[in-house]
């Protein structure tokens, strides 16, 4: 039964990947890609990796889908007929490569232990109880630190390409309201709660900063999709602080360790310290991913236009305040 399920998931993944490449319409390809993300998270669940399954379901199927659909709408060429994907002889070398790689994995002797034992030995020295979170925040702090740096760099790059001076500019309310506000009022508290729960869970069970941040980012995107003014009403300084907080705390950690003449990123074994870093990382991931999702909007090249929009968002704020 388990074998059957594995084969089914594997076959569906390959078949969908094939359809993504061969789909004639771009919209079809994007929707298939969202399905692909969901199936991939099923594969993660089959591979005993609930952390990755959670992150994949939110990122691969959720945020990536929003980004792709949004861009598809922006770059659509109405007059032009969508050119279909042509079959290409390039498939042959790619299949050859697949054959060679498959030959190579037959000779791999899977080492079932890997680094699991080393992590287990290290667990005594850390105050965290869940190994994946311990690896992320304690043993391999560099990875998480630099990953937050990559996120920050992507946000900055986006601002540069869109020629925006602040994160605030992209935070204008969306013109349309595809999701009713009543839906937001039901979903948003739930999303906040689920994110917070995942964050709290991360210390001793599957969950943690990544999953929580991604879930919160989904909430932020939903808020923006509904044309809700609350995101635009937030002060810019708050956004900037949120975006750099995780990176800055890691930096502080590294700097203080150097001052105390210890190896970089070692820290006093206090749970509060680790939790502070984890919470800051979750907040930064949420803010950065939300900025990435909404920041791609067309930049305002007319001051007048942005003023009108500002005014409108101000009006909306007043309306909500009056309620």
């Amino acid at each position: 039964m388990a074998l059957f399920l594995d084969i089914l998931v594997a076959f569906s993944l390959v078949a969908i990947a094939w359809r993504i490449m061969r789909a004639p319409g771009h919209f079809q390809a994007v929707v298939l890609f969202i399905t692909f993300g969901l199936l991939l998270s099923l594969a993660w669940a089959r591979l005993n990796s609930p952390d990755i399954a959670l992150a994949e379901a939110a990122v691969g199927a959720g945020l990536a889908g929003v980004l792709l659909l949004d861009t598809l709408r922006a770059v659509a060429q109405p007059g032009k007929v969508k050119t279909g994907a042509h079959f290409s002889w390039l498939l042959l070398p790619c299949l050859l490569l697949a054959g060679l790689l498959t030959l190579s994995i037959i000779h791999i002797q899977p080492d079932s232990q890997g680094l699991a034992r080393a992590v287990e030995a290290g667990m005594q020295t850390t105050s965290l109880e869940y190994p994946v979170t311990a690896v992320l925040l304690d043993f391999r702090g560099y990875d998480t630190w630099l990953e937050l740096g990559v996120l920050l760099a992507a946000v900055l790059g986006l601002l540069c390409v869109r020629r925006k001076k602040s994160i605030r500019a992209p935070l204008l309310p969306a013109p349309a309201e595809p999701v009713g506000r009543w839906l937001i009022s039901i979903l948003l508290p739930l999303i906040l709660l689920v994110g917070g729960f995942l964050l709290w869970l991360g210390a001793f069970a599957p969950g943690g900063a990544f999953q929580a941040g991604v879930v919160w980012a989904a909430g932020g995107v939903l808020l923006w999709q509904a044309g809700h003014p609350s995101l635009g009403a937030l002060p810019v300084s708050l956004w900037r602080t949120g975006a750099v907080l995780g990176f800055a705390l890691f930096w502080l950690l590294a700097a203080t360790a150097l001052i105390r003449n210890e190896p970089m990123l070692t820290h006093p074994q206090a749970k509060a310290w680790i939790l502070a870093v984890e919470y800051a990382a979750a907040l930064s991931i949420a803010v950065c991913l939300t900025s990435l999702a909404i920041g791609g909007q067309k930049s305002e090249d007319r001051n007048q236009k942005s003023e009108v929009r500002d005014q409108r968002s101000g009006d909306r704020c007043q309306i909500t305040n009056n309620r």
Partner: protein
Amino acid sequence: MHGFYIYAITAILLFCLGLWGLAFHRNLLRKIVALNVMAGGVFLFFISIANPDQSGEVDPVPQAMVLTGIVVAISLTAFALCLARRIHEKTGQNELDTSCSIEDGDG
């Protein structure tokens, strides 16, 4: 043990299909999607190798690295899509024009 081979071979096929799509699609959006499929293949291979018998504890280090990788991949996707939009705004095209050289490309 069968799980390792099933998912590893799936991962290789995903990687190669993604590579194929990246090579032959001219549309930038489709290229970015293909790149994401490739990334999915790499992550899947990493985890399938870390969890060969699908039982008991999974090596936490690859899991943590894939988690990091997923977030980096979405950052990359967002930035690439932003560049694609910029290219569309500047040229009205959804693909890169590779026929012109740098000298006559300033028009």
